[in-house]
Structure formats: C-alpha cells, structure tokens
C-alpha cells in the first residue's frame, strides 16, 4: 500500500486532555474489561462537544439557529489554504492582505500557537487569535471556513472581542474550526476533510480533521 499523504491535524482525545479552564474535562470509563472477565473491551467517553478539534455551529452563540448537524457537508470537504501568521500577537488584516484569498476558501491559520499551546493541561494566555477587524476583512472576502490552532478563534483584544469574532463569522455563514494542530505543517494549498459528528441540534461537534497537499 502506498504511504498515506494525509496529515492528521486533529488533537488526540483522551481523559484530562487540554481544554478551556472553565470547561469540564474529557473523561474515559472502561465499561467492559477483559481483565475483569468481560469478552470485549468497551469504553464510555464524556466530553464537551467543543473538546479537541471541533466545529462551532451558529447555535453556540445564537439560540434557535442552526445546529452542527444542519451545516452543509461541502463546507468541510475541499480545497484549503494554510497561512502562516508571523505576527506574534494576533491575526490582523494587514498581514492577510498579502495573500490571494478567494471566495469559498477554507483558511487554516498556523500561528505561533501550534509550536507550544497543545503541550499543557489548560489553554494558556496570551494566545494568538483573529482580531475583530481581521474577521470583518475575511467576511468581506467571502471565505467558507476559518480554522485556528487554539481553542477559540478570537479574544486577542478582550474577552468581549472573542464573542464578537465568533458572531461575525457565524452570522456571515463562515464555519469555525478550532483546535487544529498545525505544528510541522508547511503553508500552502491542501485538500481538507473535517466533517463534524452528526450531533443532532448540537452547538458544536468534534471532527477528525485531515489535510493533504494538492
């Protein structure tokens, strides 16, 4: 079999894995255990739907709006661009202006976060995220999806800015993918596969996010 050229940019999901400081942690429980005489191994997982690599649905911020199971499948499958952000503070429009960003693009921002944030127990601050003005710039570009290497897309300016950035994207129909690990990934054009679990009326759902060079 040919060597796979798929790159796994998802976080492994395990008990106690990194999460938001106020969010419940992932728990694993062994329900059936051969060491105790059971014929099979079977586990139970308790997780926030924002655990690990995941997609936010509009319902996360807007009561009554679309759940993650109502988002179009095509959003999560297709061409994507990994953009390496040099700015040590935030993703700003000044840096994005140099890139050829097209309508329908899926953008994955590889920031300085990828080099260190996933090693700890909680997501650290400060971190690099998308500013309000950069979010507005991306809405203007009519992109389809935005991904970032942190638990949240916004909040560089303030806590309120985090809410605002989410709302700007979700209100414009731009899907949000959080907690991708882009360590070791070269900037450039890729094919993306990141369809979330079909969690009915979920405000978010975990996904297995993969990319391969095109």
């Amino acid at each position: 079999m040919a060597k796979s050229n798929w790159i796994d940019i998802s976080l492994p999901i395990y008990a106690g894995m990194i999460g938001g400081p106020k969010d419940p942690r992932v728990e694993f429980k062994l329900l059936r255990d051969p060491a105790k005489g059971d014929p099979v191994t079977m586990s139970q997982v308790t997780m926030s739907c924002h655990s690990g690599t995941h997609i936010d649905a509009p319902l996360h911020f807007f009561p009554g709006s679309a759940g993650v199971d109502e988002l179009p499948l095509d959003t999560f499958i297709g061409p994507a661009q990994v953009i390496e952000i040099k700015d040590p503070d935030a993703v700003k429009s000044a840096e994005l202006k140099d890139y050829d960003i097209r309508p329908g693009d899926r953008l994955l921002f590889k920031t300085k976060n990828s080099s260190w944030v996933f090693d700890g127990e909680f997501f650290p601050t400060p971190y690099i995220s998308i500013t309000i003005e950069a979010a507005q710039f991306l809405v203007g570009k009519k992109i389809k999806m935005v991904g970032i290497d942190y638990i949240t897309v916004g909040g560089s300016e303030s806590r309120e800015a985090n809410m605002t950035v989410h709302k700007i994207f979700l209100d414009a129909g731009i899907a949000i993918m959080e907690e991708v690990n882009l360590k070791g990934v070269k900037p450039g054009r890729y094919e993306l596969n990141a369809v979330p679990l079909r969690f009915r009326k979920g405000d978010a759902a975990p996904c297995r996010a993969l990319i391969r060079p095109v």
Partner: protein
Amino acid sequence: MVKAKSEWIDISLPIYEGMVGGPNDPRVTVRLVRDPAKGDAVTMSQLTMISHTGTHIDAPRHFFVDGTTIDALPLETFIGPARVIEIKDTDSIKPAELEPYNIRAGERILFKTKNSSHVYDSDKFTTPYVYISNEAAQLLVDKKVQLVGIDYITVGGYATREDNRLVHKLFLNGGVSILEEVNLKGVKPGNYELLAVPLRFHKLDAAPCRAIIRPI
C-alpha cells in the same frame, strides 16, 4: 454565487440522547453545561456516549487485548472508493449471494440489507436483523477486502454471542475494518466514494465517525 447541490449523501445516524444502542449498553446522554436561558453567554453541551455510539468503527482492540486501537488505524482505510451491495436475503448475508459480485482485494463494501428500511425507525434495539454469516465473513476475509460496513449495530448475528464475536474476530484478525450503524435507506447500489474517518480517541476500542458517500 451559484452553489451546486451537494452530491454527498449522509449515511451516518444522528446522535442524540436515548438513540438506539446495544441491549446491554448505556444510552447516549446530553447535558447542557452552558445555557442562555439561565443567563450564560453561550450554549454548550456535553455528551456521554460509548465508543460504539451511532455510526462507528470497531478497532481490533475491541476484541483483542493487544489489538490495534482506533487512533492507530491507517487513515486511508476510511477514505476512498466503496461499493454498496444490496442484499436480498432477509435472514443473513451468505456466500452464495456474494459470489456474483466479483469482490476484489482492497475493496470497501457496504451492505444495504432489509435493515435500512426499518431498524432506525425506533430507538429500541430490534431483532431479528440481517447480519453477516460466519461463512460470508470468512469469504470476505479471504477476498482481502479493506472495510466492511453494515446497516445495523453489529456485523454479526443475534442468535448466539459466540457467533457474533466470531464474525468480529474473523474481520479484525483478518485486517478488515468494521463500520457499523450506517443507514443506507434510499441509497442505490453501486460505486461511491466513502469518507468515514473515526474520531481520534486515544488508545480506545472504537470511535464514532461521520460517514458520507457520493456517487462516482
């Protein structure tokens, strides 16, 4: 912008509290950990589910204590061409019915049985259901298929636990990945592209996936 209609067909089950599961397994529960109705800024829910919830992939670890875990299975197993075969037998999948299909090494085979027409109408675990017979499992292992999918909770039968386990063990020991609980209602037999990569559950026995197909 003109948007083409998607060709992707969702063959996954929706995941929700109380959805169908095995007769001895705990059901899915959903807890609202942040609720705007209680003054929270966002909605956030927490899922408690077994590793075999909804549409999912079984790893060898499910049956073999030293077997490969779900996060260590090759990604390309779950991405690529697949064939939907419609099974007419209302009892089980048997070698005689598979013979004319000329099944080849490396294929991903999804069996659309009578199950798809009714089993998911209820959250109750339903028997009888159409399953893969021991003999057909052995035939598929001999053919060296890459993945086998079925439209109910388990690839094996319900009459005895031993037979059910044997079918799983034949596949997993034979390097065949198992995709369970796909819904093929309304899906035409034929050739498709499959995407069904499981969640990256660290060292677990199985994981749910979003399984989708499109005609090729």
